């Protein structure tokens, strides 16, 4: 029988007989809870317990729903229900009654009600809304206890959206005469600040008041908020330094009431809080640090008592001293302090000492050297936690000389560790060290073998990824590369021969890839041997199908000769009927390629894994197939989120006006996959293979290369402090075995222990010298500030140059897109740039015009067309200083603008083309409800131009002439203006109007000129004024959409408003409403094509979702939004 039962049973008689015990309101022996607990302890099996609890719950259920149950009984029932829940049984029927009890009960009943609610419900439980009113009422109560209860429950759990409802009342409590209420109110605000910082930002000045409260308790509570705020913005609170120092001085000097003492140490919690704030304020700030040196010194001095709490203060003090701008005197004392911790017999202090050492070792490596013997002892400590922390410390001091010893220790630990989280973390560290400091090929491959076998399937997927990349990309020397690969192949072959049964899948995948790619490097290795090893792998039951497909790909690369073909045939026959489609696919590949050597050589060129592979991620080569399918009646493709939503709509009525829960992970649709087709460059030979590589064996893991990893499979990864490039030595050390290395280094290392030492001691010393080599104060060591790349063995080659990617980009992406993007740039600069620099020279076109006047017309004119656009290309790139050729013309032409358009905003007047003395220019004018294109025809010669005919045409636009009768002639030295109204037929990022003008000069020959005018779609956007409700209905009705993340304008809390205002001003959008972190915006494309925009702040970016009935419109608009924000 278990101990507790025994204890309970022996205790029971005394419990039953005792009426009055010390304390108040002791357990009543007759209470039903008591009966229940006693009942449970008497049971012997889990099954019986279950039955008993179910019975209990049924009876509770009956009673709570009975109208005759009094509040007092209800309280008792709730206690029992919470007890059942604590045992792991669900009592959800009682939740609503708990809320009721909190609402209607008096004093203690209410308290139990609140307690039950806070135990039952989560922060986002919908029933919590019912609690809001109760809390409101209690906050206004005159009964202090009720107010306290309400504040407590508010800080425990409160729906985020309802904070505004109670905020004024909580704020009011900051002025309450009772300090306990003020304290609780401050802590409640602290909680609000944590869960919804923007809700409380307007009361920052009240926090100041709380900081200056006459009650030290209130002040302490307010420091929690300040710590948080200073963490976010240390610059904003530097002025607090002096006050914090003063407060700390007073606390340390024992000026606070005795009440705040803890084991006769003055207010330790407050002290530590203050020290933390100081370290934030003094970080990287010399002058601020100056202010605090004195008080830190005093804190160190005062904390001398031998008690945990003083050590806690000391620890915080030391951390602070090492965080702020250093002062040697203090550092010395802090180092001594760390020494005391490390040398302490108390294991907790030792642990913290190690932690502190880890924290400071980058600044002061000698400290590790001082304590090397202790560190060695800790390395063999029976407590794994200590061991683990020691390894962490060693990780920080690893260099090229001690890497073998340290990695060995880490691997040793890995073999006994059972915790997945630790394994994942440590395996990553070993891989990092191995890659950085590996002394030779053998060691590297063997270490990585251990990493893969121990890390198995819990390690981060980027470890095998980067390992394979390292192998395939190679290093500086071809010969070295070959050796490394060959060694890897040999080592893997022997591993497979030794029985692959226990190897993790990830490792097997790595092995098969390497064998497939490089086994030809090993001359004595017969391909048939490798093939048979691989096929054995295929036959193994433990091999997952994902691994099998890796194996099959490897076999495809290897099958050569008669033996190879027969193996291949056998294998492909087995798997071509597999249920797994990927396997079947691979088997087919194998079958075909093993028969056709030429094809295989082309598809899988040997040793070509380094060459970048161009991937057309837009899959444009499938366009023909898609259009055929569409023509044959297939349904058009819809993105998954759209499909899901439509499904949801079919299933049930949506009660929300709009925005059925925006997907949270919008960041996953990055700019890359929405915008113009981009080009991936993946290194591998075969396209299928490359996808696998980047996908790490098919399981949908993303390519993490170059991305800072914050989230892992275990959730948020604790931020590994960026490991400074640790110690390096000027001369690369020659390869030495650890033992010899130890001896060699011992000679110039001063170990603190005396020389004549017993055997084990000597062993330890040897270990010490091999561990701490390169850390000495000898001049050769520099821990900080220098990059150790010079020493690194496996130095990555530079990635393939950007140039090739750029060229290939234009090759692969559909030309139309590229064109339009480029042109957009051109035009934008034309339209938006306001160049004040008026050039005194005549416009270049005109000069050219005159000089080329005798040339043949046609050629000339097309040329002209190009030159008209060219200057802006250059301008846009910023290559040539801007000069505005249009300005003079602009000035004189603008006076010819039709009167009705004069007040409206218009673009600059752009020259379109010229022919001899005839110059065409144009601009567009944005009316409230229209867009007008105005074409100016300037005849600068004396003679008239006759029989003029101007025709405009566009794929994307509807062009209609505004003037009734077309102009037919232009007199000498005059300007004729033609006005057209434009509306969009088919949205595109940039729309273009093409025109032809034919005319007859006085000389008599008919002539014609062509021109084109481009304008951004943004000029057609007008605000669409709708109400939120209308917006909701429209949102659901529209089918075309797009999503993207945009950058926010500012980092602060007003960022949404600021960003939307920029968009509003630049693009004429209508902001319908902004609610908290979300905003809805509407606009229309002329004439009446609506587009809706939903914006939300998500992880520092603006997640935008656009919807419209018009295809392409959302995509075009998002592009303009992006540009508008970039330009801002």
């Amino acid at each position: 029988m278990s101990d507790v039962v025994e204890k309970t049973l022996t205790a029971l008689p005394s419990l039953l007989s005792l009426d009055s015990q010390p304390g108040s309101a002791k357990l009543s022996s007759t209470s039903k809870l008591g009966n229940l607990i006693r009942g449970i302890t008497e049971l012997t099996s889990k099954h019986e317990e279950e039955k008993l609890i179910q019975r209990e719950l049924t009876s509770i259920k009956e009673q709570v729903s009975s109208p005759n149950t009094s509040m007092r009984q209800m309280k008792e029932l709730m206690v029992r229900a919470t007890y059942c829940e604590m045992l792991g049984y669900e009592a959800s029927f009682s939740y609503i009654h708990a809320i009721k009890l909190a609402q209607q009960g008096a004093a203690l009943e209410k308290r139990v009600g609140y307690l039950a609610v806070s135990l039952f419900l989560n922060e986002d439980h919908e029933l919590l809304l019912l609690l809001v009113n109760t809390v409101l009422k209690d906050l206004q109560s005159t009964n202090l206890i009720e107010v306290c209860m309400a504040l407590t429950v508010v800080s425990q759990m409160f729906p985020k959206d309802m904070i505004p409802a109670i905020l004024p009342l909580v704020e009011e409590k900051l002025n309450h005469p009772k300090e306990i209420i003020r304290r609780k109110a401050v802590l409640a605000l602290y909680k609000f600040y944590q869960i919804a910082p923007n809700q409380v930002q307007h009361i920052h000045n009240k926090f100041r008041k709380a900081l200056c409260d006459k009650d030290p308790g209130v002040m302490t509570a307010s420091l929690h908020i300040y710590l948080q705020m200073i963490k976010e913005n240390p610059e904003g609170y530097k002025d607090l330094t002096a006050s914090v120092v003063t407060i700390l001085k007073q606390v340390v000097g024992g000026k606070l009431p005795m009440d705040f003492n803890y084991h006769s140490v003055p207010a330790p919690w407050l002290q530590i809080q203050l020290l933390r704030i100081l370290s934030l304020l003094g970080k990287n700030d010399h002058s601020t640090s100056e202010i605090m040196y004195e008080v830190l010194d005093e804190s160190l001095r005062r904390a001398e008592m031998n008690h945990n709490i003083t050590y806690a203060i000391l620890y915080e003090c030391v951390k602070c001293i090492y965080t702020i701008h250093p002062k040697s005197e203090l550092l010395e004392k802090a180092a001594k302090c760390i020494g005391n911790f490390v040398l302490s017999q108390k294991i907790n202090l030792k642990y913290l000492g190690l932690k502190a050492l880890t924290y400071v070792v980058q600044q002061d490596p000698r400290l590790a050297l001082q304590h090397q013997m202790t560190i060695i002892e800790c390395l063999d400590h029976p407590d794994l936690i200590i061991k683990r922390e020691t390894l962490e410390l060693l990780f920080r001091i690893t260099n090229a000389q001690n890497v073998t010893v340290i990695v060995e220790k880490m691997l040793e630990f890995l073999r006994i560790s059972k915790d997945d989280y630790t394994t994942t973390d440590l395996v990553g560290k070993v891989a990092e060290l191995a890659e950085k400091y590996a002394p030779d090929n053998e060691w590297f491959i063997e270490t990585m073998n251990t990493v893969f076998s121990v890390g198995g399937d819990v390690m981060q997927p980027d470890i095998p990824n980067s390992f394979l990349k390292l192998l395939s990309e190679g290093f500086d020397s071809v010969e070295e590369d070959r050796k490394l690969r060959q060694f890897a192949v040999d080592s893997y072959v022997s591993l497979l021969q030794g029985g692959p049964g226990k190897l993790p899948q990830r490792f097997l995948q790595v092995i098969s890839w390497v064998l497939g790619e490089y086994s030809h490097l090993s001359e004595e290795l017969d391909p048939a041997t490798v093939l048979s090893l691989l096929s054995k792998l295929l036959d193994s039951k433990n091999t997952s199908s994902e691994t099998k497909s890796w194996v099959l790909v490897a076999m495809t690369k290897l099958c050569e000769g008669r033996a190879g073909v027969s193996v291949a045939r056998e294998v492909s026959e087995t798997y071509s009927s597999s249920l797994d489609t990927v396997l079947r696919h691979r088997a087919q590949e194998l079958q075909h390629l093993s028969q056709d050597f030429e094809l295989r050589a082309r598809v899988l060129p040997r040793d070509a894994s380094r060459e970048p592979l161009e991937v057309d991620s837009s899959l444009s080569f499938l366009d023909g197939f898609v259009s055929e399918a569409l023509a044959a009646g297939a349904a058009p493709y819809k993105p998954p989120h759209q499909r899901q939503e439509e499904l949801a709509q079919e299933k049930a009525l949506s009660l929300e006006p709009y925005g059925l829960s925006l997907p949270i992970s919008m960041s996953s649709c990055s700019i890359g996959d929405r915008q113009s087709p981009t080009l991936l460059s993946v290194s591998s030979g075969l396209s299928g293979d490359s996808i696998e590589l980047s996908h790490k064996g098919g399981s949908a893991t993303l390519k993490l290369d170059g991305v800072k990893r914050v989230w892992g499979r275990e959730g948020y990864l604790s931020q590994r402090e960026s490991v400074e490039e640790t110690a390096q030595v000027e001369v690369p050390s020659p390869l030495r075995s650890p033992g010899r290395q130890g001896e060699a280094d011992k000679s110039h290392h001063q170990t603190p222990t005396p020389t004549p030492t017993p055997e084990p001691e000597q062993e330890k010393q040897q270990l010490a010298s091999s561990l701490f080599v390169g850390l000495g104060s000898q001049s050769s060591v520099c821990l900080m500030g220098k990059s150790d790349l010079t020493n690194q063995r496996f130095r990555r080659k530079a990635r393939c140059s950007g140039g090739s990617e750029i060229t290939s980009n234009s090759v692969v992406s559909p030309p139309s897109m590229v064109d339009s993007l480029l042109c957009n740039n051109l035009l934008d600069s034309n339209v938006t740039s306001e160049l004040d620099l008026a050039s005194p020279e005549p416009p270049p076109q005109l000069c050219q015009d005159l000089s080329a006047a005798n040339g043949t017309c046609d050629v000339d004119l097309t040329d002209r067309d190009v030159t008209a656009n060219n200057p802006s290309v250059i301008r846009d790139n910023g290559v040539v200083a801007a000069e505005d050729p249009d300005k003079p013309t602009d000035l004189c032409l603008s006076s010819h603008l039709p009167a009705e358009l004069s007040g409206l905003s218009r673009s600059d007047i752009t020259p379109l083309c010229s022919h001899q003395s005839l110059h065409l220019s144009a601009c567009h004018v944005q009316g409230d409800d229209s867009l007008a294109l105005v074409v100016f025809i300037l005849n600068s010669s004396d003679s008239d131009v006759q029989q003029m005919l101007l025709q405009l045409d566009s794929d994307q636009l509807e062009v209609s002439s505004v003037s009734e009768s077309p102009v037919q002639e232009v007199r000498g030295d005059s300007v004729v203006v033609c006005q057209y109204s434009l509306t969009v037929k088919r949205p595109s990022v940039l729309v273009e109007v093409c025109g032809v003008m034919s005319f007859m000069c006085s000389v008599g020959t008919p002539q014609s000129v062509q021109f084109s005018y481009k304008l951004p779609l943004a000029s057609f956007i007008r605000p669409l004024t709708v109400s939120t409700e209308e917006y909701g209905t429209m949102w659901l009705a529209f089918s075309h959409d797009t999503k993207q993340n945009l950058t926010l304008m500012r980092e602060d809390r007003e960022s949404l408003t600021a960003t939307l205002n920029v968009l509003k001003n630049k693009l004429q959008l209508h902001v319908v409403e902004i609610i908290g972190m979300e905003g809805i915006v509407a606009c229309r494309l002329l004439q009446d094509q609506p587009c809706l925009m939903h914006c939300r702040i998500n992880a520092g970016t603006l997640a935008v979702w656009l919807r419209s009935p018009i295809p392409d419109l959302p995509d075009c608009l998002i592009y303009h939004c992006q540009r508008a924000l970039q330009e801002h």
Partner: protein
Amino acid sequence: MIRFLLLFSRQGKLRLQKWFTAYTDREKKKVIRDMVMLVLARQPRSCNFIQWRDLKIVYKRYASLYFCAGLEASDNELLSLEVLHRYVELLDRYFGNVCELDIIFNFEKAYFILDEFLMGGEVLETSKAAVAASMEEADTLQEVL
């Protein structure tokens, strides 16, 4: 800031749980299971701190009960050890020589004491006398009614 506080017996029976940040029920179950496993497996006289995921776990055994707190990375382990100790002192003062049974049978009181001591994961009141006073106040109120 303390993320959660758990009390469980040597047999791994949960006696009290307090969550200062939002966890889903599933996460809670997982945390409880992991904590009980981790802490009960520790040898006597080993270190009172454990690294678990990105949290620091501080635990201490008092008689048959384990007190276990999950802290954020920036928290001070030793100080939290004293938080646990102060809580035990408070329980002791209220119940008078507290034992596991007091907490089993009066777990709601244990919660109330905790609420007076910690709020939102931070220490609200360090004075033993003050906590005792506010507990007494609430209790007498009940007597009157």
